[in-house]
């Protein structure tokens, strides 16, 4: 399997604009307060093999969408490197980035309401010279057919379609540039269950017929478990666990992963009267020291608030960032019991 996309220590921070007065104060030396920065994504290293579906899971504010946008070239990275088929694209290059397209969550917001479907779908391809303007109608028809829409819909406007149909249009727009890699950012989250099934099937069909590779970003564990080959779990800007889908769901290592899996409502689960994990995602403006999960972690030890655990291999191909895996930590009885319960 060849690596298609690789990120190395990819990070993104945003500066917080202070008021004019505060900036003036520090300019004349009245205040020494530095510009605050939010570290949205920290040192994310991922590799996606050709033809693979990598799931990226986390709660809101964990930085999963920011990772997707950096990979798609919509946001420049603050530091780190990004490579596509061995070529460095940390500074977005148009030629290579045409291979990476994105499908967004909300098809009501991602389509221009004043453009007809044929314009939406063909605009980028015409601009980049992939298709001639006079051949556009045939080009649009074939794309609409590929995503399961009637080609006669080409002259309609987005508001004439249902949510599921709009998402198909958004997918056709992504396919128009003949990409190898698609970033799906919560692409099925806004859809009804029965429509979601249709769109997931479409993604699977396209993967088969076009050999597409996906980064599938979602907060929905059931969807990720269904579609992804490997899963990365993010918490507050960092990857805390990374492994193939089966291992993540059968033998989750990180306490956060275990909490996520236990808390997700599932149809096939037994009724368990478990107490959900407490607390909320801390503010990325003031991340907790050490392991950022320690204030919510049921197994937190003194070292968890002092030292940040590194992502380490706990089983072949299974990476986790937790001090419970430190060689000198002998699991306390309740930790061992918690592991046994899951495994």
């Amino acid at each position: 399997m060849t690596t298609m996309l690789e990120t190395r220590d990819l990070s993104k921070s945003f500066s917080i604009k202070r008021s004019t007065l505060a900036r003036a104060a520090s300019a004349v030396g009245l205040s020494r307060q530095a510009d605050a920065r939010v570290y949205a994504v920290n040192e994310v290293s991922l590799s996606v093999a050709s033809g693979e579906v990598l799931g990226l899971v986390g709660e809101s504010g964990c930085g999963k969408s920011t990772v997707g946008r950096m990979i798609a070239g919509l946001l420049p990275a603050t530091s780190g490197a990004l490579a596509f088929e061995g070529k460095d694209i940390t500074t977005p290059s148009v030629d290579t980035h045409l291979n990476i397209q994105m499908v967004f969550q909300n098809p009501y917001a991602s389509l221009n309401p004043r453009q007809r479907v044929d314009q939406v779908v063909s605009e980028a391809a015409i601009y980049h010279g992939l298709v001639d303007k006079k051949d556009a109608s045939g080009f649009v028809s074939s794309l609409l057919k590929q995503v399961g829409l009637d080609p006669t819909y080409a002259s309609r406007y987005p508001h004439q379609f249902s949510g599921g149909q709009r998402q198909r249009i958004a997918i056709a727009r992504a396919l128009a540039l003949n990409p190898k890699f698609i970033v799906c950012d919560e692409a099925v989250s806004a859809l009804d269950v029965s429509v979601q099934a249709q769109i997931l099937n479409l993604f699977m069909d396209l993967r088969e017929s076009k050999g597409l590779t996906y980064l599938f970003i979602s907060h929905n564990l059931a969807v990720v478990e269904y579609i992804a080959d490997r899963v990365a779990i993010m918490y507050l800007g960092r990857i805390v666990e990374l492994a193939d889908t089966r291992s993540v769901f059968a033998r989750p290592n990180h306490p956060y992963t275990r909490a996520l899996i236990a808390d997700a409502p599932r149809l096939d689960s037994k009724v368990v009267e478990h107490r959900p994990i407490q607390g909320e995602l801390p503010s990325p403006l003031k991340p907790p020291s050490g392991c950022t999960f320690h204030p919510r972690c049921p197994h937190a030890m003194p070292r968890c608030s002092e030292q940040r655990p590194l992502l380490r291999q706990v089983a072949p191909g299974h990476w986790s960032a937790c001090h419970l895996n430190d060689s000198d930590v002998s699991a306390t009885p309740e930790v061992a019991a918690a592991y046994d319960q899951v495994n």
Partner: protein
Amino acid sequence: MALLEVNNLVTEFHTEAGVAKALDNVSFTLERGKVLGIVGESGSGKSVTAFSLMNLVEKPGRIAGGEILFNGENLRNASVKRWSQLRGDRIAMVFQDPMMSLNPVMRIGAQLGETIAIHRKVSRAEINEQVCAALKRVGIPAPVERMRAYPHELSGGMRQRVAIANAIVNSPDLIIADEPTTALDVTIQAQILYEMKNLARASGTALIWITHDISVVKDLADELCVMYAGRIIERGPVAEIIRNPLHPYTRGLIDSLPQAENHGKRLYSIPGATPPLLSLPPGCTFAPRCSRATGECHKIPPVFKLEGREYRCFHPLA
């Protein structure tokens, strides 16, 4: 006597393009202290059910028929005054977006206090005590400090807790929750579901929980109504419906959910799309998408009853 008995409720929307029947003969009962889940996709009428029960249907919509018996009183004839006595006191509602029910320029404590003061004459100190207790019951840490906060100072999960506290502060007989956890993260949703379950158990409040996700109400609800195009097409105990759905639409809905054992296989998907309310097919509205449909399905299926379960289908499964 059941706490709530809804009989043949019809809610219509009169639009320029015609009359849309958003609720078509909806009937169900809810006992005191029980939890009823209502599941359906967008446009199925689940939110209109909630708004109709609260008499919050606005023009061009109107309740066109049926009765809502609450503690034996038919609320269809209730006056505006009677409704303002009931709402917030005996029947409370929690919306999907807590910002819709919270006033952005009022402190949390003052808002919840207002809910009490409108319905009862009690002292300031007593109000504060009750508000504090309500905030505590929904799991808000440091409730005394939080009472001084404005809604924008709280996270989405905390706001929804405040909205729930606002609903329970007068210990109502019935709470109607319309997709209250849909906008929340998985772990926060789990916390709220856990607390609601305990709350309903401890206080004896009946709960109607509306959701598009059947797995959310699986452990919470006692009974489930499945809605499609304005009708309740199946009703019964949650566990039995999930294990053994009778209506082909319910079966399709359950089979469409991605599950681990289907990894790599195609998901089942119901053919076609939900029909627009303005041009519903005659008879069974699901018939055009149904593999079991026959000529008989051109008639509207009545409610069939079988061992404590109800369904509207001429050709039920199993």
